[in-house]
């Protein structure tokens, strides 16, 4: 099977390429937007996913395409639209589209894939909902599509849910949040997402139907537990209990100047990592959102065998320690308070 991977240089894309290359049945080509390639990154093809003609030319002869494109609202939504058009032009039969749990918007409770899509939670969720609509259009026009909706993808190398999170923990800006961190993390290991993407390539699908699958490890904990575990595993101890007020101040008062400073440094060609990561208000919403993905369909139909949470946690912590020169700092030191 010839597989074309869009977004092959991203966190998930890179791991996916590795796993595809290790199969006996897939022949994979990875692509990324040329202008976003950083030194050291490599992709087989550089294309602009929003340009249907060039994309169609690239897709010719491929059996399937996996869409892992991240980025702005436009690259997500219009990118998906171009992809659909390009696949139709190039007779590429199947799209495996990586969506997100953000398509469920502010919904709470245990959600399976039948839950209605809700684009009301900001640009990201809206763009991802639009992208899914384009996938439905593709299916109605005779194509095949499989949609995957992962929760928060973590594992070694995850900047978003391990690197940045651990830095917040080490700087005392994150910890045990009480009710503000009582939402389910819906963490899913990057390997499990790639496993699901591979299975989706070969999943038999009926006509006029784009099956969707939630991806979240069934043993993924609530955010407070993850933050505490990651803090302990990386030595950010003793874990602090933070009040919702402190979090709000960090996000709303310190957030904007930090964001601006980061953008400025990027513009000036300096390393934005020197500025502390701003705490996006959207995350505060997420951490207290009691949304729990029901991923039983992925277990049963895609046959995903989930990486145990503890294993993902430890390997993630190890990656963080190795990459932040904090190795050896994990000592369980009690604090004598009086």
């Amino acid at each position: 099977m010839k597989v074309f991977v869009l977004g092959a240089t991203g966190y998930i894309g890179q791991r996916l390429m590795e796993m595809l290359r290790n199969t006996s049945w897939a022949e994979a080509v990875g692509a990324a937007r040329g202008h976003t390639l950083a030194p050291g990154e490599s992709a087989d093809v550089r294309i602009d996913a929003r340009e249907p003609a060039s994309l169609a030319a690239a897709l010719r002869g491929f059996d399937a395409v996996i869409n892992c494109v991240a980025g702005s609202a436009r690259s997500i939504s219009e990118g998906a639209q171009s992809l659909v058009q390009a696949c139709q032009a190039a007779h590429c039969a199947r799209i495996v589209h990586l969506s997100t749990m953000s398509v469920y918007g502010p919904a709470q409770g245990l959600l399976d894939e039948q839950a209605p899509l809700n684009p009301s939670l900001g640009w990201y969720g809206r763009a991802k909902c639009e992208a899914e609509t384009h996938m439905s259009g593709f299916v109605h026009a005779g194509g095949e599509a499989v949609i995957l909706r992962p929760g928060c993808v973590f594992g070694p190398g995850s900047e978003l849910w391990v690197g940045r999170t651990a830095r917040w923990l080490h700087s005392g800006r994150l910890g045990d949040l009480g009710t503000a961190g009582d939402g389910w993390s819906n963490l899913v290991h990057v390997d499990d997402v790639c496993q699901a993407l591979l299975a989706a390539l070969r999943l038999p699908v009926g006509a006029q139907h784009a099956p969707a699958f939630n991806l979240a490890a069934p043993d993924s904990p609530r955010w407070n537990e993850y933050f505490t575990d990651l803090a302990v595993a990386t030595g950010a101890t003793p874990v602090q209990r933070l009040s919702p007020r402190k979090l709000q101040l960090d996000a709303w008062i310190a957030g904007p100047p930090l964001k601006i400073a980061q953008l400025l440094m990027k513009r000036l060609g300096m390393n934005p990592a020197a500025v502390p990561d701003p705490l996006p208000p959207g995350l505060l919403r997420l951490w207290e959102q009691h949304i729990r993905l029901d991923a039983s369909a992925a277990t049963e139909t895609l046959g995903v065998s989930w990486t145990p949470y503890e294993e993902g946690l430890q390997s993630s912590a190890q990656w963080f320690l190795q990459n932040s020169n904090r190795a050896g700092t994990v000592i369980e030191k009690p604090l004598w308070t009086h």
Partner: protein
Amino acid sequence: MISSASSIPHGALLEADVCVVGGGPAGIALTLALSENGLSVLLLESGFMKMDGKTQSLYEGEVVDQHMHSPPDKYRQRRLGGSSAIWGGRCMPFDPIDFEARNYIPHSGWPLSYEDLLPYYPQANALAEAGRFSYNAEEALGPQVAPMIRGFDSSRVRTSGLERFSCPTHFGSRYAKRLQLAPGVKVLLGANCTGIRLQADGRAVGLIEVSTLSGKQFSVRPRATVLAAGGLETARLLLASRDVVPAGVGNHHDVVGRYYMCHIAGNVGMLTIHGAPDSVRHGYELAPEGVYCRRRLSVTQSEQRRLGLANAVARLHFPRITDPAHRSGVLSGLFLARKMISYEYSKRLNDGAPPTLGTYAQHAFNVVKDPVDTTAFLTHWLTRRTFASRKFPSVILRNRTNRFSLEMHGEQIPQARSRVTLSGKADAMGMPQLRVDWRYSQADIDSVARSLDVFAQEFERTGTARLEYNRATLEEDLMRFGAYGGHHIGTARMGHDERSSVVNADCQVHSVHNLFVAGSAVFPTSSQANPTLTLIALSLRLGDTLSRRLQRSPVLQLEEVTA
């Protein structure tokens, strides 16, 4: 979901798999566990999200000896979250010995073992936000941790034990959203259970009667009912429901309300530790998870068995606050500010005769003379307690002299004559009020004395410290404030024999197959431990028992059937 009982039509009949009476830590833990297992739950909570004076006054009642027990409306809160709205947060499990039948403790022995409860403790710790289920200093704080008292090594006295502290978590506000979203759960606020109506044969609950303060009445017909109303209120409900069994539900053998226990507690003796002050760990330490922990002294289980001692612990404490001879500005400041502290927490700041003007003057002098320490203490208190989300658990003084009193907290030996009964008065709902007749025995005092003797012998043998206490005033020291407030234990005790117990090992009332009790009312013995963590663990276990018994039912949903 959470709604008000006033939204239910008068005369309605509600159905659910399980009706839980009482939304404190036991009821909330149980309800969430049942929901996870697919059962529908109706949780009846008398109070609301906030304290309500009228509802709280439903707790009023009589106390036989006011010196021995606080009024029944103190140390209890009738609201969602129950008394966790005001608790101190001390969390520790019972010890294996607590579950054993000990021939030297009359009426001891649980129908279940420590191992039966052990699987539920870690989740209880999580719900109470007390960190890991780890109660050994080296395991919880790390292998390099300093000992409680340097140089003290004993096979008779354990010093590696820890107690952990909750935030303290208010279960009502902390878990409201979980309850709101839990599938199949309906929480009714302002819903007072006024009666357990048995079927004519007395073998099953027919209806649970509910009233609101405004006079609305409706009933619940559940497949199973769990009373989780607290150690006092559960007995009250059982005793007051007497239409089928005149002595009260489950009370064929006059056991309901008897064997009432609290804890034997007080500050005693003078411990002088030799060596430098930094060789002692007397205050709070933070575990990696950020939870406050504190060391404690206890006589080992084998030594308790050998000597026939009731279970007890001791913490290193400061001298009596009321006596200005301690010369501590912090303690004197606390004494002077005691009127600003709630009843529950100021009780032990008021002892003996009313203070004279001279006493006040001496306390004031202590504060003025000790400004640096007093200011440092206040700053610490404000940042670590008043404005902190995880609160510094209690007042700890800097150890300058290596002299302490011992804060004892001991098991009370169960006795049938210590009991609660119904009084002649009724509350606003027409429910008979409670009459509390708490008793302790000389054996309780004697056991504490002999534990202190073991401590003293071991301190002397190791040459680490000297413990002196006055045996003649020990009873007065331990009973100065009467029963330790807030721990209401044993009024619907658990056992195999219905002649001497109310519920079986499954927490089911012996004679009623679908009526259960959650909470410290079922504890047959009281342990050294505060009851909350164990009553949460036991409630989680009851959740499993009920889920197994009831399975998922396709028929019974939360429906209103207007009668």
